[in-house]
Protein backbone atom coordinates (compact mmCIF):
# COMPACT_ATOMS: atom_id res chain seq x y z
CA UNK A 1 0.00 0.00 0.00
CA UNK A 2 2.64 2.48 1.11
CA UNK A 3 4.90 1.38 -1.70
CA UNK A 4 2.13 1.89 -4.18
CA UNK A 5 1.42 5.41 -2.99
CA UNK A 6 5.11 6.27 -3.05
CA UNK A 7 5.37 5.10 -6.62
CA UNK A 8 2.40 7.23 -7.60
CA UNK A 9 3.86 10.26 -5.84
CA UNK A 10 7.17 9.73 -7.62
CA UNK A 11 5.46 9.48 -10.95
CA UNK A 12 3.54 12.66 -10.28
CA UNK A 13 6.77 14.48 -9.40
CA UNK A 14 8.40 13.32 -12.60
CA UNK A 15 5.45 14.51 -14.61
CA UNK A 16 5.55 17.87 -12.87
CA UNK A 17 9.23 18.37 -13.59
CA UNK A 18 8.91 17.40 -17.23
CA UNK A 19 5.94 19.55 -18.04
CA UNK A 20 6.44 23.27 -18.75
CA UNK A 21 4.78 25.52 -16.23
CA UNK A 22 1.13 25.92 -17.17
CA UNK A 23 0.34 29.23 -18.80
CA UNK A 24 -2.04 31.49 -17.02
CA UNK A 25 -5.21 31.02 -19.01
CA UNK A 26 -8.65 32.15 -18.10
CA UNK A 27 -10.94 29.20 -17.96
CA UNK A 28 -14.65 29.71 -18.08
CA UNK A 29 -16.12 28.49 -14.82
CA UNK A 30 -19.34 27.43 -16.44
CA UNK A 31 -19.27 24.17 -18.34
CA UNK A 32 -21.02 24.27 -21.71
CA UNK A 33 -24.73 23.85 -21.17
CA UNK A 34 -25.93 20.70 -22.88
CA UNK A 35 -29.39 20.29 -21.41
CA UNK A 36 -31.60 23.35 -20.85
CA UNK A 37 -31.60 24.39 -17.20
CA UNK A 38 -34.69 24.19 -15.02
CA UNK A 39 -37.19 27.02 -14.99
CA UNK A 40 -37.70 29.10 -11.89
CA UNK A 41 -41.11 28.42 -10.34
CA UNK A 42 -43.84 30.50 -11.91
CA UNK A 43 -41.93 31.22 -15.11
CA UNK A 44 -43.91 28.41 -16.72
CA UNK A 45 -46.85 30.86 -16.68
CA UNK A 46 -45.10 33.11 -19.21
CA UNK A 47 -46.59 31.35 -22.24
CA UNK A 48 -50.23 31.35 -21.04
CA UNK A 49 -50.05 34.96 -19.83
CA UNK A 50 -48.52 36.17 -23.09
CA UNK A 51 -51.17 34.25 -25.01
CA UNK A 52 -54.03 35.88 -23.07
CA UNK A 53 -52.50 39.36 -23.46
CA UNK A 54 -52.14 38.86 -27.19
CA UNK A 55 -55.71 37.65 -27.41
CA UNK A 56 -56.99 40.63 -25.41
CA UNK A 57 -55.04 43.00 -27.63
CA UNK A 58 -56.38 41.37 -30.80
CA UNK A 59 -59.94 41.67 -29.46
CA UNK A 60 -59.48 45.27 -28.38
CA UNK A 61 -58.25 46.46 -31.78
CA UNK A 62 -61.04 44.54 -33.47
CA UNK A 63 -59.08 41.76 -35.15
CA UNK A 64 -61.25 39.20 -33.38
CA UNK A 65 -65.01 39.74 -33.48
CA UNK A 66 -66.92 38.95 -30.24
CA UNK A 67 -69.23 36.79 -32.34
CA UNK A 68 -66.26 34.62 -33.16
CA UNK A 69 -64.53 34.68 -29.77
CA UNK A 70 -65.10 36.88 -26.73
CA UNK A 71 -62.22 38.90 -25.30
CA UNK A 72 -60.69 37.57 -22.07
CA UNK A 73 -61.80 40.69 -20.21
CA UNK A 74 -65.41 40.18 -21.34
CA UNK A 75 -65.21 36.55 -20.25
CA UNK A 76 -63.88 37.58 -16.86
CA UNK A 77 -66.71 40.08 -16.36
CA UNK A 78 -69.26 37.45 -17.46
CA UNK A 79 -67.65 34.91 -15.15
CA UNK A 80 -67.92 37.27 -12.18
CA UNK A 81 -71.56 37.97 -13.00
CA UNK A 82 -72.34 34.27 -13.23
CA UNK A 83 -70.54 33.75 -9.92
CA UNK A 84 -72.53 36.52 -8.24
CA UNK A 85 -75.86 35.14 -9.42
CA UNK A 86 -74.96 31.67 -8.15
CA UNK A 87 -75.56 30.08 -11.57
CA UNK A 88 -71.93 29.21 -12.01
CA UNK A 89 -71.62 27.54 -8.62
CA UNK A 90 -74.60 25.27 -9.33
CA UNK A 91 -73.30 24.20 -12.73
CA UNK A 92 -69.80 23.81 -11.40
CA UNK A 93 -70.95 21.58 -8.55
CA UNK A 94 -73.02 19.45 -10.92
CA UNK A 95 -69.98 18.90 -13.14
CA UNK A 96 -67.58 18.28 -10.28
CA UNK A 97 -69.96 15.79 -8.70
CA UNK A 98 -70.22 13.81 -11.92
CA UNK A 99 -66.50 13.83 -12.55
CA UNK A 100 -65.37 12.95 -9.04
CA UNK A 101 -68.09 10.37 -8.44
CA UNK A 102 -67.07 8.67 -11.67
CA UNK A 103 -63.41 9.05 -10.77
CA UNK A 104 -63.90 7.58 -7.30
CA UNK A 105 -65.89 4.60 -8.50
CA UNK A 106 -63.55 4.00 -11.44
CA UNK A 107 -60.43 4.18 -9.27
CA UNK A 108 -61.92 1.77 -6.74
CA UNK A 109 -62.95 -0.75 -9.40
CA UNK A 110 -59.67 -0.41 -11.30
CA UNK A 111 -57.70 -0.93 -8.11
CA UNK A 112 -59.67 -3.99 -7.03
CA UNK A 113 -59.36 -5.52 -10.50
CA UNK A 114 -55.62 -4.79 -10.62
CA UNK A 115 -55.05 -6.40 -7.22
CA UNK A 116 -57.13 -9.45 -8.08
CA UNK A 117 -55.35 -9.83 -11.39
CA UNK A 118 -51.86 -8.95 -10.20
CA UNK A 119 -51.87 -11.19 -7.16
CA UNK A 120 -53.61 -14.35 -8.35
CA UNK A 121 -53.38 -16.43 -11.49
CA UNK A 122 -57.12 -17.11 -11.63
CA UNK A 123 -57.68 -13.38 -11.33
CA UNK A 124 -55.25 -12.60 -14.13
CA UNK A 125 -56.74 -15.26 -16.39
CA UNK A 126 -60.27 -13.95 -15.92
CA UNK A 127 -59.70 -10.20 -15.73
CA UNK A 128 -56.70 -9.12 -17.76
CA UNK A 129 -58.03 -10.06 -21.22
CA UNK A 130 -61.33 -8.32 -20.56
CA UNK A 131 -59.73 -5.07 -19.46
CA UNK A 132 -57.41 -5.13 -22.48
CA UNK A 133 -60.48 -5.43 -24.72
CA UNK A 134 -62.25 -2.66 -22.81
CA UNK A 135 -59.15 -0.56 -23.34
CA UNK A 136 -59.30 -1.07 -27.09
CA UNK A 137 -62.93 0.12 -27.29
CA UNK A 138 -63.20 3.93 -27.02
CA UNK A 139 -65.51 5.09 -24.24
CA UNK A 140 -67.51 7.18 -26.70
CA UNK A 141 -68.36 4.04 -28.66
CA UNK A 142 -70.09 2.71 -25.56
CA UNK A 143 -72.46 5.67 -25.31
CA UNK A 144 -75.30 4.14 -27.42
CA UNK A 145 -75.36 0.92 -25.38
CA UNK A 146 -75.00 2.78 -22.11
CA UNK A 147 -77.98 4.98 -23.01
CA UNK A 148 -80.08 1.90 -23.85
CA UNK A 149 -79.15 0.26 -20.56
CA UNK A 150 -78.96 3.12 -18.13
CA UNK A 151 -81.02 5.83 -19.77
CA UNK A 152 -79.80 9.36 -20.49
CA UNK A 153 -79.54 10.47 -16.86
CA UNK A 154 -76.76 10.78 -14.33
CA UNK A 155 -76.24 7.04 -13.85
CA UNK A 156 -75.16 6.62 -17.46
CA UNK A 157 -72.74 9.54 -17.25
CA UNK A 158 -71.12 8.47 -14.01
CA UNK A 159 -70.90 4.87 -15.21
CA UNK A 160 -69.17 5.89 -18.43
CA UNK A 161 -66.71 8.14 -16.61
CA UNK A 162 -65.94 5.31 -14.18
CA UNK A 163 -65.47 2.84 -16.99
CA UNK A 164 -62.99 5.10 -18.76
CA UNK A 165 -61.13 5.85 -15.54
CA UNK A 166 -60.66 2.26 -14.46
CA UNK A 167 -58.53 1.43 -17.49
CA UNK A 168 -55.45 3.57 -16.75
CA UNK A 169 -55.69 2.69 -13.04
CA UNK A 170 -55.84 -1.01 -13.83
CA UNK A 171 -53.12 -1.04 -16.51
CA UNK A 172 -50.54 0.84 -14.46
CA UNK A 173 -51.20 -0.78 -11.09
CA UNK A 174 -51.27 -4.23 -12.64
CA UNK A 175 -48.02 -3.62 -14.51
CA UNK A 176 -46.34 -2.46 -11.30
CA UNK A 177 -47.62 -5.48 -9.36
CA UNK A 178 -46.45 -8.01 -11.93
CA UNK A 179 -43.16 -6.20 -12.48
CA UNK A 180 -42.20 -6.55 -8.84
CA UNK A 181 -38.45 -6.82 -8.26
CA UNK A 182 -37.57 -10.51 -8.05
CA UNK A 183 -34.71 -9.64 -5.69
CA UNK A 184 -37.21 -8.24 -3.21
CA UNK A 185 -39.22 -11.46 -3.44
CA UNK A 186 -36.07 -13.45 -2.70
CA UNK A 187 -35.24 -11.23 0.26
CA UNK A 188 -38.76 -11.67 1.62
CA UNK A 189 -38.35 -15.43 1.37
CA UNK A 190 -34.96 -15.42 3.00
CA UNK A 191 -36.32 -13.57 6.04
CA UNK A 192 -39.32 -15.91 6.18
CA UNK A 193 -42.08 -13.38 5.46
CA UNK A 194 -45.67 -14.66 5.42
CA UNK A 195 -47.81 -14.08 2.32
CA UNK A 196 -49.92 -11.47 4.07
CA UNK A 197 -46.91 -9.55 5.28
CA UNK A 198 -45.37 -9.81 1.83
CA UNK A 199 -48.43 -8.18 0.28
CA UNK A 200 -48.51 -5.40 2.85
CA UNK A 201 -44.83 -4.66 3.09
CA UNK A 202 -43.43 -5.46 -0.36
CA UNK A 203 -46.04 -5.94 -3.10
CA UNK A 204 -48.31 -2.97 -2.36
CA UNK A 205 -45.64 -0.35 -1.60
CA UNK A 206 -43.79 -1.56 -4.68
CA UNK A 207 -46.89 -1.01 -6.82
CA UNK A 208 -47.66 2.45 -5.43
CA UNK A 209 -45.65 4.40 -8.04
CA UNK A 210 -47.57 2.56 -10.78
CA UNK A 211 -50.87 3.40 -9.11
CA UNK A 212 -49.96 7.09 -9.05
CA UNK A 213 -49.03 7.08 -12.72
CA UNK A 214 -52.44 5.56 -13.36
CA UNK A 215 -54.15 8.11 -11.15
CA UNK A 216 -52.61 11.06 -12.99
CA UNK A 217 -53.85 9.65 -16.28
CA UNK A 218 -57.24 8.86 -14.73
CA UNK A 219 -57.77 12.43 -13.56
CA UNK A 220 -57.23 13.72 -17.09
CA UNK A 221 -59.39 10.94 -18.54
CA UNK A 222 -62.31 11.71 -16.23
CA UNK A 223 -62.47 15.36 -17.34
CA UNK A 224 -62.17 14.41 -21.00
CA UNK A 225 -65.06 11.97 -20.67
CA UNK A 226 -67.07 14.57 -18.78
CA UNK A 227 -66.78 17.16 -21.53
CA UNK A 228 -68.21 14.75 -24.09
CA UNK A 229 -70.95 13.40 -21.83
CA UNK A 230 -72.15 16.84 -20.81
CA UNK A 231 -73.15 17.48 -24.40
CA UNK A 232 -75.86 14.83 -23.98
CA UNK A 233 -79.18 15.67 -22.38
CA UNK A 234 -78.13 17.73 -19.39
CA UNK A 235 -79.88 20.56 -17.65
CA UNK A 236 -76.98 21.51 -15.46
CA UNK A 237 -73.23 21.36 -15.60
CA UNK A 238 -70.53 23.35 -17.31
CA UNK A 239 -71.14 21.45 -20.55
CA UNK A 240 -74.82 22.37 -20.50
CA UNK A 241 -73.96 26.01 -19.85
CA UNK A 242 -71.64 26.01 -22.86
CA UNK A 243 -74.14 24.28 -25.13
CA UNK A 244 -76.85 26.76 -24.30
CA UNK A 245 -74.43 29.62 -24.82
CA UNK A 246 -73.67 28.24 -28.27
CA UNK A 247 -77.39 28.41 -29.14
CA UNK A 248 -77.44 32.09 -28.19
CA UNK A 249 -74.03 32.87 -29.65
CA UNK A 250 -72.61 33.88 -26.23
CA UNK A 251 -68.94 33.22 -26.83
CA UNK A 252 -68.03 34.81 -23.48
CA UNK A 253 -69.85 32.05 -21.57
CA UNK A 254 -68.17 29.42 -23.72
CA UNK A 255 -64.79 30.89 -22.80
CA UNK A 256 -65.75 30.85 -19.11
CA UNK A 257 -66.67 27.16 -19.44
CA UNK A 258 -63.39 26.34 -21.14
CA UNK A 259 -61.45 28.19 -18.45
CA UNK A 260 -63.24 26.20 -15.75
CA UNK A 261 -62.48 22.88 -17.45
CA UNK A 262 -58.83 23.91 -17.72
CA UNK A 263 -58.66 25.01 -14.08
CA UNK A 264 -60.28 21.80 -12.85
CA UNK A 265 -58.02 19.57 -14.96
CA UNK A 266 -54.89 21.40 -13.89
CA UNK A 267 -56.01 21.59 -10.26
CA UNK A 268 -56.72 17.87 -10.11
CA UNK A 269 -53.39 17.00 -11.67
CA UNK A 270 -51.63 19.30 -9.24
CA UNK A 271 -53.43 17.70 -6.28
CA UNK A 272 -52.47 14.19 -7.42
CA UNK A 273 -48.86 15.21 -7.94
CA UNK A 274 -48.75 16.77 -4.50
CA UNK A 275 -50.14 13.62 -2.92
CA UNK A 276 -47.73 11.48 -4.96
CA UNK A 277 -44.74 13.50 -3.81
CA UNK A 278 -45.80 13.03 -0.19
CA UNK A 279 -46.50 9.32 -0.49
CA UNK A 280 -43.32 8.58 -2.44
CA UNK A 281 -41.08 10.97 -0.53
CA UNK A 282 -38.52 8.20 -0.04
CA UNK A 283 -37.56 8.55 -3.70
CA UNK A 284 -36.51 12.13 -3.36
CA UNK A 285 -33.69 11.28 -0.97
CA UNK A 286 -30.31 12.08 -2.48
CA UNK A 287 -28.99 9.11 -4.39
CA UNK A 288 -25.60 7.72 -3.42
Amino acid at each position, binding site marked *: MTLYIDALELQAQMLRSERPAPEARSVSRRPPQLAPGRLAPGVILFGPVAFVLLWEFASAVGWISPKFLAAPSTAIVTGIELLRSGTLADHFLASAKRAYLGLGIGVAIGLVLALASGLSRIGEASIDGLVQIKRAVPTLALIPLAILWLGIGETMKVALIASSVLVPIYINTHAALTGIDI*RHVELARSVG*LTRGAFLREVALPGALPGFFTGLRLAVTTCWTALVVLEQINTSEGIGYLMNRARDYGQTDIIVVGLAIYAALGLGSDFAVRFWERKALSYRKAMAS
Partner: protein
Amino acid sequence: MNVAVHSFRPEPGGRDAAVSLRNLTRRFSGRDVLSDVSLDFAPGEFVALIGKSGSGKSTLLRAIAGLDDGVAGEGTMTVPPDRSVLFQDSRLLPWKTVLQNVVFGLRAADADERGAAALTDVGLAGRETAWPNALSGGEQQRVALARSLVREPRLLLADEPFGALDALTRIKMHELLLQLVRQRQPTVLLVTHDVDEAIKLADRVLVMEAGRIVVDRPVTLAHPRAKDAGFGTLRADLLSALGVSDAA
Protein backbone atom coordinates in the same frame (compact mmCIF):
# COMPACT_ATOMS: atom_id res chain seq x y z
CA MET B 1 -36.23 -32.59 -6.63
CA ASN B 2 -35.33 -34.97 -3.90
CA VAL B 3 -33.74 -32.99 -1.11
CA ALA B 4 -34.34 -33.59 2.54
CA VAL B 5 -33.81 -30.53 4.70
CA HIS B 6 -33.52 -31.25 8.38
CA SER B 7 -33.32 -28.62 10.99
CA PHE B 8 -30.16 -28.50 12.99
CA ARG B 9 -29.57 -31.21 15.54
CA PRO B 10 -26.32 -32.78 16.66
CA GLU B 11 -25.77 -36.03 14.82
CA PRO B 12 -26.07 -38.93 17.25
CA GLY B 13 -22.61 -40.23 17.99
CA GLY B 14 -21.04 -38.08 15.27
CA ARG B 15 -19.40 -34.67 15.58
CA ASP B 16 -22.08 -32.00 15.72
CA ALA B 17 -21.67 -30.16 12.46
CA ALA B 18 -23.57 -26.91 11.96
CA VAL B 19 -23.99 -27.62 8.27
CA SER B 20 -23.75 -31.00 6.68
CA LEU B 21 -24.12 -31.64 2.95
CA ARG B 22 -24.17 -35.11 1.42
CA ASN B 23 -23.88 -35.81 -2.31
CA LEU B 24 -25.47 -32.51 -3.23
CA THR B 25 -26.15 -32.21 -6.96
CA ARG B 26 -27.84 -29.40 -8.87
CA ARG B 27 -28.62 -29.24 -12.57
CA PHE B 28 -29.62 -26.48 -14.95
CA SER B 29 -31.09 -27.71 -18.21
CA GLY B 30 -29.50 -31.13 -17.89
CA ARG B 31 -26.02 -29.80 -17.06
CA ASP B 32 -24.57 -30.57 -13.63
CA VAL B 33 -23.67 -27.28 -11.99
CA LEU B 34 -23.02 -28.93 -8.61
CA SER B 35 -21.79 -32.51 -8.69
CA ASP B 36 -21.79 -34.65 -5.63
CA VAL B 37 -20.75 -32.04 -3.07
CA SER B 38 -20.29 -33.37 0.47
CA LEU B 39 -19.18 -30.95 3.18
CA ASP B 40 -19.37 -30.41 6.93
CA PHE B 41 -18.99 -27.03 8.61
CA ALA B 42 -18.26 -26.98 12.34
CA PRO B 43 -20.30 -24.60 14.52
CA GLY B 44 -18.73 -21.15 14.43
CA GLU B 45 -16.45 -22.03 11.55
CA PHE B 46 -15.72 -19.27 9.02
CA VAL B 47 -15.53 -20.86 5.59
CA ALA B 48 -14.60 -19.00 2.41
CA LEU B 49 -15.57 -20.38 -0.97
CA ILE B 50 -13.64 -19.22 -4.00
CA GLY B 51 -13.72 -20.33 -7.60
CA LYS B 52 -13.87 -19.14 -11.18
CA SER B 53 -16.93 -17.38 -12.44
CA GLY B 54 -19.61 -19.94 -13.30
CA SER B 55 -18.06 -22.69 -11.16
CA GLY B 56 -21.22 -23.04 -9.09
CA LYS B 57 -20.48 -21.01 -5.93
CA SER B 58 -23.73 -19.10 -5.88
CA THR B 59 -25.65 -22.24 -6.76
CA LEU B 60 -24.20 -23.97 -3.69
CA LEU B 61 -24.92 -21.00 -1.45
CA ARG B 62 -28.49 -20.69 -2.70
CA ALA B 63 -29.03 -24.42 -2.16
CA ILE B 64 -27.89 -24.10 1.46
CA ALA B 65 -30.03 -20.97 1.87
CA GLY B 66 -33.07 -22.86 0.57
CA LEU B 67 -33.58 -20.28 -2.19
CA ASP B 68 -33.43 -22.76 -5.07
CA ASP B 69 -36.70 -24.61 -5.14
CA GLY B 70 -37.59 -25.60 -8.65
CA VAL B 71 -33.97 -26.38 -9.44
CA ALA B 72 -33.35 -30.04 -10.32
CA GLY B 73 -31.03 -32.01 -8.06
CA GLU B 74 -30.46 -34.59 -5.36
CA GLY B 75 -28.68 -34.90 -2.06
CA THR B 76 -29.30 -34.33 1.62
CA MET B 77 -28.59 -31.30 3.75
CA THR B 78 -28.61 -30.59 7.43
CA VAL B 79 -28.73 -26.83 7.93
CA PRO B 80 -29.82 -24.71 10.86
CA PRO B 81 -33.24 -23.11 10.37
CA ASP B 82 -32.01 -19.78 11.70
CA ARG B 83 -29.86 -18.76 8.79
CA SER B 84 -29.49 -15.43 7.14
CA VAL B 85 -28.38 -14.35 3.68
CA LEU B 86 -26.20 -11.37 2.82
CA PHE B 87 -26.53 -10.61 -0.88
CA GLN B 88 -24.09 -8.88 -3.20
CA ASP B 89 -26.42 -5.91 -3.48
CA SER B 90 -27.69 -4.50 -0.22
CA ARG B 91 -31.26 -5.27 -1.27
CA LEU B 92 -32.88 -2.66 0.94
CA LEU B 93 -36.53 -1.81 0.39
CA PRO B 94 -36.52 1.86 -0.69
CA TRP B 95 -39.92 2.57 0.92
CA LYS B 96 -38.78 1.45 4.36
CA THR B 97 -36.54 3.45 6.64
CA VAL B 98 -33.14 2.12 7.62
CA LEU B 99 -34.45 0.72 10.91
CA GLN B 100 -37.53 -0.81 9.25
CA ASN B 101 -35.20 -2.50 6.78
CA VAL B 102 -33.03 -3.91 9.56
CA VAL B 103 -35.99 -5.48 11.38
CA PHE B 104 -37.74 -6.50 8.14
CA GLY B 105 -39.62 -9.75 8.81
CA LEU B 106 -38.24 -10.01 12.34
CA ARG B 107 -40.97 -11.21 14.67
CA ALA B 108 -39.84 -10.21 18.12
CA ALA B 109 -41.37 -7.96 20.74
CA ASP B 110 -38.10 -6.03 21.13
CA ALA B 111 -37.37 -5.92 17.40
CA ASP B 112 -36.85 -2.16 17.27
CA GLU B 113 -34.42 -2.09 20.18
CA ARG B 114 -32.44 -4.95 18.72
CA GLY B 115 -32.48 -3.28 15.32
CA ALA B 116 -31.17 -0.04 16.76
CA ALA B 117 -28.45 -1.95 18.61
CA ALA B 118 -27.45 -3.73 15.40
CA LEU B 119 -27.24 -0.37 13.65
CA THR B 120 -24.96 0.89 16.40
CA ASP B 121 -22.80 -2.20 15.91
CA VAL B 122 -22.29 -1.37 12.24
CA GLY B 123 -21.60 2.27 13.04
CA LEU B 124 -24.89 3.71 11.83
CA ALA B 125 -26.44 4.85 15.11
CA GLY B 126 -28.66 7.87 14.55
CA ARG B 127 -29.53 6.95 10.95
CA GLU B 128 -32.58 4.88 11.93
CA THR B 129 -35.13 7.08 10.20
CA ALA B 130 -33.10 7.81 7.05
CA TRP B 131 -34.27 6.48 3.67
CA PRO B 132 -31.95 3.91 2.07
CA ASN B 133 -31.60 6.16 -0.99
CA ALA B 134 -29.91 8.75 1.18
CA LEU B 135 -27.09 6.38 2.17
CA SER B 136 -23.82 5.72 0.38
CA GLY B 137 -23.17 2.27 -1.11
CA GLY B 138 -21.00 1.23 1.82
CA GLU B 139 -23.57 2.44 4.34
CA GLN B 140 -26.30 0.53 2.53
CA GLN B 141 -24.24 -2.64 2.71
CA ARG B 142 -23.70 -2.05 6.43
CA VAL B 143 -27.47 -1.80 6.89
CA ALA B 144 -27.75 -5.15 5.09
CA LEU B 145 -25.14 -6.58 7.45
CA ALA B 146 -27.14 -5.29 10.42
CA ARG B 147 -30.27 -6.86 8.92
CA SER B 148 -28.48 -10.21 8.76
CA LEU B 149 -26.96 -10.03 12.24
CA VAL B 150 -30.01 -8.78 14.13
CA ARG B 151 -31.56 -12.20 13.49
CA GLU B 152 -28.68 -13.76 15.44
CA PRO B 153 -28.35 -16.47 12.79
CA ARG B 154 -26.55 -19.70 13.51
CA LEU B 155 -25.52 -19.67 9.85
CA LEU B 156 -24.56 -16.58 7.86
CA LEU B 157 -24.49 -17.05 4.09
CA ALA B 158 -22.79 -14.23 2.20
CA ASP B 159 -22.49 -14.13 -1.60
CA GLU B 160 -19.79 -11.63 -2.58
CA PRO B 161 -21.19 -9.09 -0.13
CA PHE B 162 -18.33 -6.65 -0.63
CA GLY B 163 -17.91 -7.07 -4.37
CA ALA B 164 -19.44 -3.71 -5.23
CA LEU B 165 -17.53 -1.69 -2.63
CA ASP B 166 -14.39 0.36 -3.12
CA ALA B 167 -11.14 -1.02 -1.69
CA LEU B 168 -11.07 1.27 1.35
CA THR B 169 -14.68 0.59 2.37
CA ARG B 170 -14.06 -3.10 1.83
CA ILE B 171 -11.18 -3.14 4.31
CA LYS B 172 -13.42 -1.47 6.89
CA MET B 173 -16.20 -3.96 6.22
CA HIS B 174 -13.74 -6.85 6.71
CA GLU B 175 -12.80 -5.59 10.15
CA LEU B 176 -16.43 -5.04 11.05
CA LEU B 177 -17.46 -8.50 9.88
CA LEU B 178 -14.63 -10.21 11.77
CA GLN B 179 -15.44 -8.32 14.94
CA LEU B 180 -19.18 -9.05 14.78
CA VAL B 181 -18.63 -12.69 13.86
CA ARG B 182 -16.29 -13.06 16.82
CA GLN B 183 -18.96 -11.63 19.14
CA ARG B 184 -21.85 -13.74 17.92
CA GLN B 185 -20.09 -16.88 16.70
CA PRO B 186 -22.26 -17.84 13.73
CA THR B 187 -21.06 -20.35 11.19
CA VAL B 188 -20.17 -18.34 8.08
CA LEU B 189 -20.03 -19.27 4.42
CA LEU B 190 -18.50 -16.41 2.45
CA VAL B 191 -18.47 -16.66 -1.33
CA THR B 192 -15.85 -14.40 -2.85
CA HIS B 193 -13.70 -14.12 -5.96
CA ASP B 194 -10.97 -12.40 -3.95
CA VAL B 195 -8.30 -14.83 -2.74
CA ASP B 196 -6.79 -12.27 -0.35
CA GLU B 197 -10.20 -11.61 1.21
CA ALA B 198 -10.68 -15.36 1.72
CA ILE B 199 -7.29 -15.83 3.42
CA LYS B 200 -7.69 -12.70 5.51
CA LEU B 201 -11.06 -13.67 6.97
CA ALA B 202 -11.62 -17.41 6.89
CA ASP B 203 -10.67 -20.39 9.06
CA ARG B 204 -10.95 -22.58 6.02
CA VAL B 205 -10.85 -21.98 2.29
CA LEU B 206 -12.66 -24.09 -0.29
CA VAL B 207 -11.93 -23.88 -3.99
CA MET B 208 -14.70 -24.88 -6.35
CA GLU B 209 -14.19 -25.92 -9.92
CA ALA B 210 -16.93 -27.03 -12.30
CA GLY B 211 -19.29 -27.90 -9.48
CA ARG B 212 -16.81 -29.80 -7.30
CA ILE B 213 -14.79 -28.84 -4.27
CA VAL B 214 -11.22 -29.35 -5.46
CA VAL B 215 -9.30 -27.75 -2.57
CA ASP B 216 -10.20 -27.69 1.12
CA ARG B 217 -7.51 -25.89 3.14
CA PRO B 218 -7.52 -24.75 6.76
CA VAL B 219 -6.08 -21.30 7.42
CA THR B 220 -4.07 -21.36 10.62
CA LEU B 221 -2.47 -17.91 10.39
CA ALA B 222 -2.92 -15.75 13.48
CA HIS B 223 -5.23 -12.72 13.37
CA PRO B 224 -4.77 -9.96 12.33
CA ARG B 225 -3.38 -11.48 9.20
CA ALA B 226 -0.49 -9.62 7.63
CA LYS B 227 0.69 -10.44 4.17
CA ASP B 228 3.69 -12.40 5.38
CA ALA B 229 5.38 -15.53 4.09
CA GLY B 230 2.66 -17.91 5.32
CA PHE B 231 0.03 -15.73 3.65
CA GLY B 232 2.03 -15.69 0.43
CA THR B 233 2.45 -19.48 0.28
CA LEU B 234 -1.24 -20.10 0.82
CA ARG B 235 -2.11 -17.43 -1.71
CA ALA B 236 0.17 -18.96 -4.33
CA ASP B 237 -1.32 -22.41 -3.70
CA LEU B 238 -4.89 -21.19 -3.99
CA LEU B 239 -4.15 -19.14 -7.08
CA SER B 240 -2.57 -22.11 -8.78
CA ALA B 241 -5.60 -24.20 -7.85
CA LEU B 242 -7.63 -21.52 -9.63
CA GLY B 243 -5.35 -21.84 -12.62
CA VAL B 244 -3.81 -18.38 -12.23
CA SER B 245 -0.06 -17.89 -11.94
CA ASP B 246 0.90 -15.84 -8.90
CA ALA B 247 2.06 -12.49 -10.13
CA ALA B 248 2.66 -10.72 -6.82
